[in-house]
Every structure is written in structure tokens, then in C-alpha cells.
């Protein structure tokens, strides 16, 4: 049954993304600028028509305190904008913008996620997300906790190393059709399993390749959305939940926060044609499929997903864009996008997108 939007419903009316660059030689602002100019140009509107802009980024990655402030240059700093920022993936910026539009006084918002991770070793940054007293001083980074999580999954009989390699093989094969991907192509499970361990039982290819990049989208309230595009993609559910920072209190083989967010967003209220999952480590797909209740009839990460290119801080927002593109093109009628933050899927956002007039 087609979704029938009400006055307060909000749709994605335009998307833009850069390639996942292994290293982009210009400023992060230029990555943002490219996205924003394409976004506004495609929508046929001026920046002044946007009532609210919000970005997600991380200053530590480029080693530039207040980088998020100069990033506003990419969105158009003059005349002054009504602007906000989250030190999180752009998917969480979308959450704030989605709430903001529901207030009803403005009708268009622009959401950006961006990051330049090439100047640093992201592992030496993101261990700082862990508990600052008893974990961060150990330098215990997300890749290390992912290795522990993958081991827990294998020990619990929920996955094998071949299952994890299968996720990588499918991601890379799918990425062959994605011009923005960083790594793509056919690779066999046997070849993958022959590679040495990195964070055993994970191998280097089980970890997403970090990239420089940006992504942006425009959302609008129902009536304005219908003016701006013939193919609005409706956000019919959006929720996010977080688990304890104390890994000893979590069941790493499951994702309770994803399950709660999926229930909040109404994932199970209809068929899911396509899902894009923020899997920065291959085994996470196995956990997320179960937590989201996705069956074999759902196409998972047709873009190749983060394992084919991980523009850190834009990667979650890119999942939403990849689902929206497929619905807008008529290739799917209902889809789920997932974004993650923190180590070992600590925090999870679930967005349900649908076609509708």
C-alpha cells in the first residue's frame, strides 16, 4: 500500500555525494561545496530558500580545532545561515533537521556530513570515544573492539570466518556498479580467507577503507517537497538508541539498540526491498540483519556499503542517500538505512524510507 503523506511528513527531495577519495588534496570545505552546489542546482533553489542547515563532522580527523566552523563556508556562510552542527556522522545531523522541520515554521533543511580522515590514523582518534577513565588510556580503538566482537560472534556459533568473508565479497562485487566506491571487484571467499589476520579474527579487508568525502541531502515538509520534486522519498520512521559505554555490560553478539531503533522507526511495518547498513567491520552485517529482522528478500548494501568506501562522518548519511536514490529511481518502494556510531555498534540509527505521491 502506497504511503500517503500528511502535512507534517518530511521527504528527501535531493541528494549529492562526492567519491570516497583515498586522499583528497584540497580543503574539506571544497568537498562540501561540491555537494552543496550540486544539491541546490539539481533542486533549482537558492541557499536562501533553505531554512536550516546542519552538518556532522569531526575536528580531530583533520587535526584542526573548529574545522566545523570553516566547513560552514562550504554551505554558504554569507548571508548568515541558521545553522547547527553535530560532532557525529551526518545521519545524526539528519535526525536533528528532521525534528526541526516538524516544528512547522520552516519547510526546507539541508544536511551535510563530511570528513577528511587521510591526514591521521583514525584508530588513533576514535579510541577517544571510549570511556575516558578505564578504556581510552589503553588506546582500545574501534577496530580492536570489532575484533573482540567478531570473535564473540564466532564463539557463539552465530558466524564463521567464511560468513564474514562472504560479506566482503558481496560488498566488493556490488561496488563495481558504484562510481563513488574506493575498492570494488570480484574476489573469492578463499582468496579473502588466505589473507593474514589484522585484528584476528578480522583481516584488513574486513575493515572499511577510510576515505575523504562528503555527502549532503535536502529535506522538505510535504507541500514544499511536492513542489521541489516529482519523486519525494518520505521519511516514515527515524529513531536512534545507544548502549552502555561499559562493554562488559553489553552482549556484543547482538545489537539491542538497533532492535529498539528499528521498532521505533517501524521497520517491520512493511516489506523491506533494500537496506544500506553502516558496516565498518564485515561481521557487523550479520548482527545488524538479525537485529533489524531483515530476510533474504531484502537487498543489503547494493552500493557496496562502507566496506567499499568509508568517508568517515559522511558514511552513515551516505547510507540514507543510497536508499533514497533507489526509491526515487523506482528501483525500490520501501527501504531501511542504518547508521552507527561508537565502537562495536554502540549507537545505532535506523531510518525507514518510502515512496509515495
Amino acid at each position, binding site marked *: 500500500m502506497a504511503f500517503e503523506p500528511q502535512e507534517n511528513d518530511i521527504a528527501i527531495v535531493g541528494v549529492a555525494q562526492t567519491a570516497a577519495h583515498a586522499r583528497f588534496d584540497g580543503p574539506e570545505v*571544497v568537498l562540501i561545496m561540491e555537494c552543496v552546489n550540486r544539491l541546490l542546482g539539481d533542486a533549482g533553489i537558492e541557499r536562501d530558500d533553505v531554512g536550516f542547515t546542519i552538518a556532522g563532522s569531526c575536528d580531530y580527523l583533520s*587535526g*584542526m580545532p573548529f574545522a566545523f566552523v570553516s566547513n560552514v563556508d562550504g554551505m554558504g556562510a554569507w548571508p548568515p545561515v541558521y545553522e547547527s552542527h553535530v560532532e557525529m556522522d551526518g545521519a545524526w545531523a539528519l535526525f536533528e533537521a528532521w525534528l526541526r522541520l516538524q516544528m512547522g515554521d520552516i519547510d526546507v533543511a539541508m544536511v551535510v556530513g563530511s570528513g577528511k580522515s587521510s591526514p*591521521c*590514523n583514525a584508530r*588513533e582518534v576514535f579510541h577517544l570515544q571510549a570511556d575516558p577513565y578505564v578504556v581510552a*588510556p*589503553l*588506546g582500545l580503538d574501534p577496530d580492536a573492539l570489532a575484533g573482540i566482537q567478531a570473535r564473540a560472534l564466532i564463539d557463539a556459533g552465530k558466524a564463521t570466518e567464511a560468513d564474514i568473508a562472504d560479506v566482503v565479497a558481496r560488498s566488493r562485487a556490488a561496488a563495481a556498479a558504484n562510481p563513488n566506491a574506493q575498492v570494488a571487484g570480484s574476489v573469492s571467499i578463499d582468496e579473502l580467507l588466505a589473507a593474514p589476520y589484522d*585484528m584476528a579474527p578480522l583481516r584488513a579487508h574486513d575493515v572499511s577503507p577510510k576515505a575523504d568525502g562528503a555527502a549532503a541531502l535536502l529535506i522538505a515538509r510535504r507541500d514544499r517537497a511536492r513542489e521541489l520534486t516529482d519523486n519525494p522519498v518520505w521519511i516514515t520512521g527515524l529513531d536512534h538508541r545507544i548502549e552502555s559505554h561499559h562493554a562488559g555490560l553489553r552482549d556484543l553478539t547482538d545489537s539491542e539498540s538497533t532492535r529498539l531503533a528499528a521498532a521505533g522507526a517501524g521497520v517491520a511495518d512493511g516489506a523491506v526491498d533494500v537496506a544500506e547498513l553502516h558496516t565498518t567491520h564485515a561481521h557487523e552485517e550479520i548482527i545488524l540483519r538479525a537485529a533489524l529482522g531483515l530476510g533474504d528478500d531484502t537487498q543489503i548494501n547494493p552500493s557496496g556499503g562502507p566496506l567499499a568506501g568509508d568517508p568517515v562522518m559522511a558514511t552513515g548519511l551516505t547510507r540514507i542517500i543510497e536508499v533514497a536514490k533507489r526509491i526515487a529511481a523506482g528501483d525500490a518502494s520501501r527501504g531501511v538505512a542504518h547508521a552507527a556510531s561508537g565502537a562495536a555498534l554502540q549507537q545505532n540509527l535506523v531510518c525507514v524510507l518510502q515512496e509515495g505521491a
Partner: protein
Amino acid sequence: MAQLPDIDFTLEYPYTRTTGPIIGPFLTGLRDGRILGTRVGDRVICPPLEYDPADGSTVGPENLVEVGPAGTVEGWTWVAEPTSKHPFDRPFAFAQIRLDGADTTMLHAVDAGSIDNMSTGMRVVVRFNDERVGSVTDVYFVPGEDAPDAPSVDADAEPVGIMEHLIGVRIREPLQPFRKRFLEGLLQKKIIGQRSPADGKVHVPSRGYDAINRVPMTEDDDVEVSGRGTVTSYTEITPIQYHGQTETEPYIRCSVLLDGADTTIGGVDIRDIPIEEFKVGMRLQIVWRDDISFDDEDNRAYGLNESVYERWERTGEPDVDPDLVKEHNF
């Protein structure tokens, strides 16, 4: 011409945190040779929390109990290539360790020598470093059951009320192309700006884009501007003697609108023009150093590296009406 090196610096922040009624005793315990958890209901949580994770109710220090020193590995990974932040510079394991007497696991490092010595369910035991400051890094684990020798403890040491954590990230990247051309220009005593293709305004130094019109700029937009210009604003700095301060005498920092530019160079250092004579509208020109070099440039600075000029001197031209440069106060 000197080669411009890639950027390589470490951005550091020293954090100090108060430890509170539970983490404080936990860190004090590690310093003094024992591991503490908290009894919460019918289970013992380690590392301890100040609250019951089920309902957020306060858990006070009367609930602290000693656990370990041995425990069981419930989960682990083998770190083949440690990062600079890890406790060992050789391969080791990070593990979830359920210490004897505890019902939850603690994340910590196991110095096991080889991945072949690691398995789920194995027994490990704590070891105390000789140097201990009251940090989770005071200890590590090794395979086995053998209790450690009691470490020597300073009975007079104060409990750990503050923890220090120096965080830092090493940044390495090439100079961005627009920045490299600007700096190479300076080496040749030329000031290179960029003219916006959107409105013709010249940005010096450029950031590689025109923020007003949202237009990236390329090498085609490069233009040379004059070493002469007009003071648009200034301030007198009176050095405060903080740690690391090398200045002792007051000096001037000013902004200069170079002829041919539409943006100002900020932070220009003036040492030999008396403050009583200095004013907005004054005409200045750069006096280049004979031998210009720099090795600490980055993609972030928006001024003119001080190492390229000896000083700025008055041109002898009449002052410019300050009203004409008031748009350029910053």
C-alpha cells in the same frame, strides 16, 4: 629553491579529570596493587560504576570489593600491528577478562607473546608495572594463574583524585595545491592570491575557494599582488609572562590590505614603528628577508609567515582615509 616538506605535526591536549568516589578508589587500587569492583545487587561489576546500570541509582564506595588477581578470558582479539596509543609496541591481545569474583568483563591488554597462546576461556592474571601513577595503564595481564608479587606501595601516597590523560593525534598530509603555490611564491618574494571567478575579488592568502560565492578556485585563478598595502586595523600586544612566552616588550599586530587584494593579511608583526605614530590608513611595505625558508607551514594558517620578512616599513606615501578601508577591519 628550497623544497616544501609535507605537513607533519602532533596536535595534543592534556586532559585532567576528577575521578570521583568510585573510579578514584579503583585507580588508587591499581596503583597500590589491587583491583576493585562494585557490588550492585547480586552481581559484581568491574571496572566499577558509580551507579546501578539497571536504574541509575547511586552506588557508593561502601560497595567496593576486591576482585582478581586472576580471571578468565571471555573474548579477545590479537593486535598484529599496535598503534602508537596501545600499551605495547609488540603484538599483543586485547581481551574481555572476567576477574575472579566479578560478574562482568573488563577490557584490558594481555601480553601473551603469540596469538597461539590465546584462546577463549583461558586463564590470565594481572601484572603491575614498576612505575604506577593511578591509571588503568598501571597494569596488564599475562597468561596463567600465578599471583603477582605484592608491588611496593607508598603508604603515604594520597588517593587518586585527579587523572591526567595527554591525548594527541599525529597529522600528516601534503600541502594543499593552492597553499603550496602561495608558499612557493613567498620563497621567491612574491605574494600570490586568487581572483574569484565569481566576483573578481582577490583573496590573499587564499583558502582555495571563494566562501561568499561558494566557488572553488584553481591555479588559473592565481594572481600576484603587491608587497605594499594599507593598515586596516591593529592592536598593541602586552606580553603576559605565561609558560613558554618568549616576548617581553609590547609590540603591534596589524592587518594589512595589500594593493590589488580584497582581503587582508592578518597578524602582521610590527616592531619598529612607535605605537604613538601607528594608525589605520598608514601605508606599509614588506621588507623581505634575504634568505627565506620555512619548515613549519601548514594548510591552516591564514597569515603571512613571519619568517619571510625582516619588518614592514612606512612607504612615505600619505595615509589613506580610514573610512575607505573600514570594510576591512578584520
